[in-house]
């Protein structure tokens, strides 16, 4: 599957295209299939996302899992500071990334 991601311009938050808007949670990311580039251009042009790009992911029961570890770290937060991740209380978060 293909995901569309980028950063919120003002806050710098990592955001994921959900199909209808932008979420900070990769679990809500939509498969943009072949139409990702068009969405990317439109959203960037409207300034709803900064430095967007498309990436590969695999679907899992917990939601999309980005194919590359860099994108998984972007999605979850630094592996060395569980308290700074999006899910600080989740003991499984680290294994999802690595």
């Amino acid at each position, binding site marked *: 599957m293909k995901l569309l991601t980028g950063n919120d311009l003002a806050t*710098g938050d990592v955001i994921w295209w959900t199909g209808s808007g932008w979420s900070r949670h990769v679990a809500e990311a939509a498969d943009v299939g072949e139409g990702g580039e068009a969405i990317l251009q439109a959203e960037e042009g409207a*300034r709803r996302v*900064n430095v967007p790009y498309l990436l590969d992911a695999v679907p899992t029961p917990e939601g999309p899992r980005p194919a590359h*570890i860099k994108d998984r770290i*972007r999605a979850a937060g630094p592996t*060395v500071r569980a308290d700074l991740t999006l899910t600080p209380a989740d003991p499984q978060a680290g294994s999802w990334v690595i």
Partner: protein
Amino acid sequence: MYRYDEYDQAIVDARVDEFRDQVTRRLSGAMTEDQFKPLRLMNGLYLQLHAYMLRIAVPYGTLDSRQMRLLAHIARKYDRGYGHFTTRQNIQFNWIRLSDAPDILAELATAQMHAIQTSGNCIRNISSDQFAGAAADEVADPRPVAELIRQWSTFHPEFSYLPRKFKIAVIAADEDRAAMRLHDIGLKLVRRPNEQGGDLGAEVYVGGGMGRTPMIAPLIKDFVPLGELMGYLEAALRVYNRYGRRDNIYKARIKILLHEIGADAYREQVEAEWVAVRDQGIDPPAAELERIAAMFAGPAFDPAAPDAVDRSDPDFAVWLDQNVRAHKAPGHAIVTISLKPVGGIPGDATADQIDLMADLAQAHSFDELRVTHAQNIVLPHVRKDALYGVWQALRDAGLAEPNLDLIGDIIACPGLDYCSLANARSIPLAQKISRRFAGRERELGELKLKISGCINACGHHHAGHIGILGVDRKGTENYQLLLGGSGAEDVSLGKITGPGFDEDGVVDAIARVTDRYLAERTSGERFLDTYRRLGMAPFKEAIYG
């Protein structure tokens, strides 16, 4: 240390206003990201893996308690309660919002701080010796010269759009504590008689650096009197700005230019350019350097400060022997605060720890601190009779690891946990190494281990006695091991041992390397010395069989 006058303050205030204007135009869409990026980089603002990261300048690594407390305040108010001290003596905050950045810069300006030119293709923070003004071996404090260069290079109109970043270091002793030879320009202050009567000048080294093609800077100019140094630097930079490569970011540093045209050709071009700029009045008068130098005259050390230290507490004695160095003034000492607790994140400090270090500096170090390029903090001027109390306070705050220059004193870039340029994580590896060798640091002796998460080499892995480079091997993290590098005056570049390893594999490989060292070393030999004596072969054999 340097104190702003009305002009310095006006410049920094105008810069805040300028950046606020630029951010407003970015947020409104009047500027594209492409147009904005170099501008925000020149204000130290990166877009990193999780958020914007702000790199605040600590000029030549020197700051006072008020500035330290402001950094703690920024960590709490605008970030997540901690900061990261870098290999260029700066500090980074990882969770900054663009919308807050102008306010942060405005707050910094109230304490004579800024984030000017800490990134971008311009002249960066001028780094220097963390023991400046305290060590007995310097010919003069290098920092006034660093300050002169800082002012000359700030918003330099000709050199703000260089082919690539430009890093300058200034030292003033034979012992190189700032990795001077691995900078784009390295300056070593020396004394020599000359026609002007005064005798302080600089040896000029150009074309050092790490990254994809590490190089040691050759000597380009044997002696430039201080009164002519800015003009010479102007010429040196102009040749680079005109002829440095702009077609390939991996070949854009000045070291590549020197490599391609040769040091002699570069030297000649600089001499020719120097003739051209000589009449332009670039060099400030001697009175300006004197004005700056007066601010670095140093505190009045108590000549009656006792020299004896009570070593009866064994833990204190270990720390004393490892982290405390001799001061030029009797009865005083130079303290290095380790930001490398066992299993910790190298170079990170919480807001509370930063406040504590500020308090200790104010009470016990004439209100001065230094950031070292090894990501530690120095209290440069501590009375020996205050050392025990300082150690106790540090110990209670987790800042008293007695590991200066030992295997646990790891230099590590933030790596893939934070950095969008990285190929691999560096911090978990540092933590594993730190834990693996906990308790054996003193047995192994001086062993400078440096980890970079990618070829940009922000962890200075080429200059590590043991260096590690993170790479991306078919989508997974992999690590190359290097041996034999040094960033000191015995400068050398590390050599790759052979095929890479996964994270646990490289830790095991290091254990085999250190075991071999212990088996082979003769009395007094550091790991680096044994390696230089024996070469790579026995270590390669120990690692790979």
